[in-house]
């Protein structure tokens, strides 16, 4: 059981790291601001989510696990808001710096 959980942690955290890596590559390589935002929010949502899911079997108390999930939810909320806000500012100003 322990081995299985450790294996799950390794797989999920590596998958999360892959999303962060892909998001960073997208941020650097995509042609315009909206697609760059898209790449960035993928990294936040999926990357951090997978890292949190991977770390869950390793926590030693329920409250620590809840805190991890809470952090993920808060990052989801703030990341989505910031992305929406930036995208809307681009649309309203009509420019794409």
């Amino acid at each position, binding site marked *: 059981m322990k081995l299985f959980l450790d294996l799950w942690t390794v797989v999920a955290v590596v998958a999360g790291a892959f999303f962060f890596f892909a998001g960073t590559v997208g941020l650097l390589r995509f042609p315009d601001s909206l697609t760059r935002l898209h790449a960035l929010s993928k990294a936040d949502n999926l990357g951090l989510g997978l890292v949190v899911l991977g770390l869950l079997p390793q926590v030693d108390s329920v409250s620590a696990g809840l805190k991890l999930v809470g952090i993920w939810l808060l990052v989801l909320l703030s990341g989505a808001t910031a992305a*929406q*806000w930036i995208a*809307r500012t681009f649309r309203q100003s009509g420019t794409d710096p």
Partner: protein
Amino acid sequence: MIEILNFGLAALILGLAVWAVVAREAPAAVVGFIVYGLLLTLVWLQLQGIDVALTEAAIGGGLTGVLLINAAVRLRSTESTARAQRPSASTRWLAAALSATVTGALAICVLALPEPAPTLAPEVLANIAVTEVGNPITAVLLAFRAMDTLLEAIVLLFALIGVWSLAPDRAWGGRPGLLQQADPNGMLDYVARVLPPIGIVAGIYIFWIGADYPGGKFQGATLLAAMWLLVMMAGLADAPPISRSWLRWLLVAGPLAFIAVGVVGAVTAGAFLSYPHGFAKTLILVIEFALMPTLTLILGLILLGAPLRGEAA
């Protein structure tokens, strides 16, 4: 493995510091500075300084970052003219020489420190029982070096007065910041309704737990101020006019309570800011409770800036 991480962190921080200095555009330099603050937070965590890490994240990266963003936005219109006036070569060499001298002097001081560095930490741990608080940082800030904390709170008040003194005459006594239109279907409106309950609980938790674990009033007050600003940014509430007497009283209530406790100590325990035996924790909590609303208001109002509008909502 952890050495590689530390080395990478140090290299990143040095690189970001250089980037923030040489960046041509003010917004880019500000972004560099904010990331620099977040990485410093990680460094403090690595050094086991969790209290300092929390403060760095809240005030060094967060609050100062927002202040600098506001400044960069304000300077945007003057930036091209400022860049056109390139200082002469001799001025720039002089500035470079001065910076290099300061850096060199600091480096010599740090490298000349005796090994192990002089520390009062063992004495703090030997005497912490007198204060009845569990977190040595809180014991230092509010018992052994309470004077420093009192002056810190008063300095923040002076900073706010400095910000207010930039107000144009016609707006004096009015509301700071720009009027925000609420957009009931907007994303910001949603977040400003969902996040504050969570943020307020987290802020009070960080404040309350500060007596025994890392945390405290500064970090908690920063979170509360952030929630207040979020609500104002979304247009759900307007900033109070700075002429309101309840606002002015709350702004001085914290330092006044602190000084009152100090005077009580002078009468009952023989020295300003010393606590009578057995009442240390109670008095520390009184000071913390009195400072919390004051700090929240001061931090929020400093970020809002000088009053720009009349009293009318």
